[in-house]
């Protein structure tokens, strides 16, 4: 599903590589934590998968896409098969919850009757039934993140990338979001989550890939955040 082969990324404006010789493989349906201190290269890793950045060296494969080398006009197709959520939710504040979710389908040209059908379904899945007509600023942080997850998942992507999705949430709310991501993972969706939240990683007991200064320093099948930290 995801394969990085000896990938290095050096940003033009920086001297030290953000990623250095990273090789990671993730199978379909896996749930993987990408951990490491701030600046260790987690976000860069995710951006490479989305073709937001291209690697300086090495190859990146996502599903059947040779991400680093594919033609630009095919990038939208890659992104349609990946859902994304972020620490800052990135909702449109002039649209309701339902409109925010529908937006993701409208802009990729899905027919209206499909949108009318699947939006309520996904809102129910993330536990926001009854809040479809609310505006984002009438929701708690946890609820806003649920909207973002609904938007990322509404097109049934092959994988979900989450960049510190609980970074702005309190521990209890974070736990709810994790349960939701787990539920999504159980539908067969690969989930890759960047975080530096110890307790979450420790409680989930899933695969952990740890980055340090752009290098993979650990890849445990059922890991915890780190002993002695």
């Amino acid at each position, binding site marked *: 599903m995801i394969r990085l082969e000896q990938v290095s990324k050096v940003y033009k404006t920086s001297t030290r590589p953000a990623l250095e010789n990273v090789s990671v493989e993730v199978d379909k349906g896996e749930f993987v934590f990408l951990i490491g201190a701030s600046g260790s290269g987690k976000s860069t890793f995710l951006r490479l998968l*989305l073709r937001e950045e291209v690697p300086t060296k090495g190859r990146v494969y996502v599903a059947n896409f040779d991400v680093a080398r594919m033609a*630009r*006009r095919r*990038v*939208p*197709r*890659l*992104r*349609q*098969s*990946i859902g*994304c959520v972020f620490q800052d939710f*990135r909702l*449109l504040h002039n649209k309701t919850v339902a409109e925010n979710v529908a*937006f*993701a389908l*409208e*802009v*990729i*040209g899905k027919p*209206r009757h499909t949108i009318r059908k699947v939006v309520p379904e996904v809102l129910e899945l993330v536990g926001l039934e009854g809040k479809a007509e609310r505006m984002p600023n009438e929701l708690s942080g946890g609820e806003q993140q649920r909207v973002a997850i609904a*938007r*990322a998942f509404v*097109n049934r992507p092959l994988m979900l990338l989450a960049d510190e999705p609980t970074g702005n949430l309190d521990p209890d709310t974070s736990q709810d979001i994790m349960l939701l991501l787990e539920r999504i993972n159980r539908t067969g969706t690969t989930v890759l989550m960047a975080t530096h939240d110890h307790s979450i990683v420790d409680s989930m007991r899933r695969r952990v890939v740890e980055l340090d200064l752009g290098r993979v320093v650990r890849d445990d099948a059922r890991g915890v955040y780190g002993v002695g930290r």
Partner: protein
Amino acid sequence: MRASFVFSEVVTGLRRNITMTIAMIITTAISLALLGGGLLVVRMIDKTQTLYQDKVEVSVYLTNDVSETDPECAAEPCAGLRAALEADPAVEQVDHESRDEAYERFKRIFEAQPELVKLARPEALPASFRIKLVDPERPEVIDQTYGGRPGVESIADQGEFLDRFFGVLNSLRNGTFFVALVMAIAALLLISNTVQLSAFTRRVEVGIMRLVGATRWYTQLPFLLEAVVTGIVGALVAIGLLVVLKVTFIDDVLGGSIQSGVVSSVDGVDILLVAPILLLTALVISGITGYVTLRLYVRT
């Protein structure tokens, strides 16, 4: 492609930057109206030129004495002059115009200005030979041959006057085109700026669109259409301005000269011919400006 989505994005975009939209429409309209005005002047020059093409004449004015005493051109020196002119191989046609006939023609030309007609007396107008040349490009031969002969007061080459007249029209046209160009640059910069502004105000939306895999059609077409729609509205306003200009200025001020055949008119057909040119210009320029701006300043 969801047309309704793109359409509503365009409308929201235009309404959000309403002041910029208006500024853009006004500059585009003025620029295009000037361009259209220039094109109309070109048409007017063309048509007036054909109007005169086979009418360019050289007038041989007769002295006051001859004008007064020989209205039929029966006596010397008038009759001799006529015979000489008729025999001249450079001359195609000769018409004698008596003082009274000259007065009649004067009244006809200036019938829109009765005050002027009242002021004029037949005695002030000379009788003349109106000569059509075989080669209208060489009017000086008449002056060389007949200037200074008895009974000839002066020789006037209408072509010379027309050259000057068309010279004025040509500089008018060039001036209009120049101002149109300057305004077009202003319109271009405004369009470019508005597209950037629009893209900036919508960067969050566009970011999300890119992330969920929207194609360039969806992320960029709304901005492009915004530019094109304002361009077209500008062109329509420009066409409206031209119609108003025709009705108020050309028909009113130049009305008399047009009726008497001094200059050619600008009619509805001319504006109909110019209108599609303006629309097309607006379409192409705003489209290209929008596209280039998106390419240069907006990440896809």
